[in-house]
């Protein structure tokens, strides 16, 4: 059987086997590489089902891909085979305000959904830095979150129902429009974060929430990142839950200022951005409480209330990860060891240990991230033309991952495991990994769905 002909019968010219096209789908934003044999851009659940069935019958690996903004190689076809580029299935099928939910195809861009919801006064809260281009399907597959997770939770908290194509092409629904259900295993939650290893999401019903009336931003700077971490712990223990709580160390600040010199940010220290939202009075009260908590610890503090000022800071913050080259054009940020997380109380310790690791390997480091939920994005940057720097980088990243596990944390808080962090799954999960393997074997006995991922 000629696979190319068979695929073409299903999707027509939305198949490519051009070497250049295949190369474009051989990586994401991580360092993982893997060349596909076919790239397919399906338009419907039926097409996905037929392609997967064809792959099942012929034991060809199938890797689903959204926008390819992943940082762990999750969408990289390390076993070759078919890449399903789901970004063309990008319709918002229903905005059901009465049931406070939406039904979307997996290729819908996160920002596009929120643009569509804004006139209704609602939003879908999980907002990764890549919200301008990442797809909801990718967010579901990796349980993505972002800056507002500290108050609003992760993608996992917003999925009511998924339409999933299983390994043999069978199409199932994992839930309904119901707010709750006590009937059977929660397959929705099983699929979320499974990185395309158990099935391929072709539709999703997502819970939405009302937009807050107002937001305010407390910008506090501290002598060092450890003290900044202590301020965060104290804020929480005083009963305030910010809607975002981000750390930007001094290197990150320099990068941001290069990116946008007009940003109103402190010129010294390591900074925490505490965003609060709600009604005018509740947000003001929360902001004042945070400032009170931070007084004994902070070098400086300010309150941003204008929408434009806050929007500019958040827009720059979203892009800081890739903007390191603005500081030194010979250096590039490499996404490794970039997504560890620890229990909130361990944050000061993690910040200290991560800094020591960067110094030990003599690598410039930028530390930023969702400190409010224990998630630190460490940005190590190197000259990509220097092999020695690559070696040191990989050693440092390895140590960062092991440190997070040692502190009771995770190697990935929101970017996923993919192939990049697969080797740490045993250390993080112990015997629970065998349970995951058993589930995988049951749902995908031939191992065609995104092989080589999650350490399975």
């Amino acid at each position, binding site marked *: 059987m000629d696979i190319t002909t068979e695929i073409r019968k299903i999707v027509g010219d939305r198949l490519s086997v*051009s070497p250049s096209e295949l190369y474009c789908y051989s990586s994401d934003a991580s360092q993982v590489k893997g060349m596909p044999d076919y790239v397919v851009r399906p338009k419907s659940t039926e097409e996905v089902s037929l392609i997967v069935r064809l792959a099942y019958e012929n034991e060809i690996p199938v890797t689903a891909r959204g926008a390819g903004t992943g940082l762990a190689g999750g969408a990289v076809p390390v076993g070759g085979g078919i890449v399903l580029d789901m970004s063309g299935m990008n319709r918002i099928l229903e905005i059901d305000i009465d049931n406070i939910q939406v039904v979307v195809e997996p290729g819908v861009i996160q920002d596009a959904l929120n643009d569509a919801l804004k006139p209704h006064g609602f939003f879908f809260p999980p907002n990764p830095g890549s919200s301008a281009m990442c797809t909801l399907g990718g967010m579901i597959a990796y349980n993505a979150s972002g800056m507002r997770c500290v108050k609003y939770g992760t993608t996992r908290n917003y999925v009511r129902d998924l339409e999933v194509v299983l390994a043999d092409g069978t199409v199932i629904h994992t839930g309904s429009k119901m707010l709750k259900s006590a009937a059977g295993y929660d397959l929705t939650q099983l699929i979320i974060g499974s990185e395309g290893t158990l099935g391929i999401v072709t539709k999703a019903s997502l819970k939405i929430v009302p937009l807050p009336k107002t937001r305010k931003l407390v910008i506090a700077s501290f002598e060092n990142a450890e003290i900044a971490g202590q301020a965060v712990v104290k804020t929480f223990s005083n009963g305030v839950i910010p809607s975002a709580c981000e750390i930007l160390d001094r290197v990150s600040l320099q990068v941001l200022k290069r990116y946008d010199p007009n940003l109103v940010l402190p010129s010294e220290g390591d900074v925490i951005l505490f965003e609060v939202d709600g009604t005018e009075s509740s947000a003001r009260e929360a902001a004042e409480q945070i400032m009170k908590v931070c007084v004994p610890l902070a070098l400086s503090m300010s309150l941003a209330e204008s929408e434009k000022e806050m929007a500019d800071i958040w827009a720059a913050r979203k892009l800081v990860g890739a903007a390191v080259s603005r500081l030194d054009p010979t250096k590039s940020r490499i996404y490794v060891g970039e997504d560890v997380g620890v229990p909130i109380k361990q944050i000061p310790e993690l910040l200290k240990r991560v800094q020591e690791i960067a110094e030990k390997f003599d690598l410039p480091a930028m530390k930023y991230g969702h400190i409010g939920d224990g998630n630190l994005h460490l940005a190590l940057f190197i000259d990509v033309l220097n092999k020695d720097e690559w070696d040191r980088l990989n050693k440092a990243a390895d140590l960062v991952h092991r440190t997070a596990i040692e502190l009771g944390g995770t190697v990935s808080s929101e970017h996923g495991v993919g192939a990049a962090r697969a080797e740490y799954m045993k250390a993080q999960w112990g015997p629970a990994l065998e349970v995951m393997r058993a589930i995988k074997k049951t749902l995908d006995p031939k191992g065609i769905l995104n092989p080589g991922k999650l350490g399975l």
Partner: protein
Amino acid sequence: MKNEERKNENETGEKNSKELPFEIDRRSVYKCVQCGTCRSVCPVFDAVGWESANTRGRMLIIKSLLEGRPPSEDVLPSLASCTTCGICAAKCPAGANPPEVVEAARAQLVKCGVTTEAQENLKSAVITYGNSFGDTKSRKHWLSETERSKLPEKSEYVYFVGCFDSYRYPEFAKKTFGILQRFGVTLLPDEQCCASPLLRTGFTEDAEKVMKHNLEQIRKVGAHTIITSCAGCYTTLKNNYPEELRVISLPEFLAEHLEELNLKKLDFTVTYHDPCHLGRHNKVYNAPRKVIQAICTLMEMKNIKENARCCGGGGGVRTGYPDISLELARTRLKDVPEGVDYIVTSCPLCVRNLRDAGGDIEVIDIVELVAMAIE
């Protein structure tokens, strides 16, 4: 690129290049960290949907060539379909400049003998006829014999007409020169294509010859300032010719001389489309707006200035991939606000593409607006 075309590439196999090393500044390529931010803005990707039609895909393909993949025609649908609009560079957090990288890669591909037929035709037209259309008429056909004979041989100011205004929109050239003559501006005795089409599509060596010819002409006239009404000519004369040239765009010149022009107010509303090579590439945003607002009401498009969407006409895409090019123009027309009488722009290439996209609102060049206010 059309899907049909992709299919053919796949099935007919690759035509490999001459065995020459593909080499460009590696750092400029490795600046791309593959974050994919460009997916949210690349207009060609928006129209085509394949990763290779996006900036990140182009950078990846160029990386693969640097890492030893032999250049072949297989890369062309990706690398030849970039309009070099530069919105990716404006948004790139890592500070990469993909249009520059793409142009450098195209130049290497030309050296390796990997080009599209459209590219070759364009080059041949410029080299043989001195214009991008292969037009055999005199470049000054829009002037009468008498007018031509009266052109000053020497002047400090020269109006660089460009291929488009010379051959496709001679009425723009007439109106522009009509205004500029009041200020003692002359024409080059033998202007040729500015070389933009050659530079954008990788024919750097051929471009050198054309630029040399035009420079000699400029020296002959003794001009220190070149005025041009084409965004493509403007960026080329300003950024690819030697630095001692002072180049001003027509909107900048008009904005500087508003008082002397004595324009009357007109009772209508227009919107303004920022040409990529005037706006994003050279930051000429305010001058055209100043001129428009001196004449009538300006209502802005949905995406303007740094965020303006490309009309699809640049980078050789109009010639090489007309379907994609027009798709971009149609998308750009969706940014036009309701209730405007005209869409004004200051680039003949944008005028043509936006007109061809077939909207209901008339697309005019800024010189036509000014001419209405003078008449």
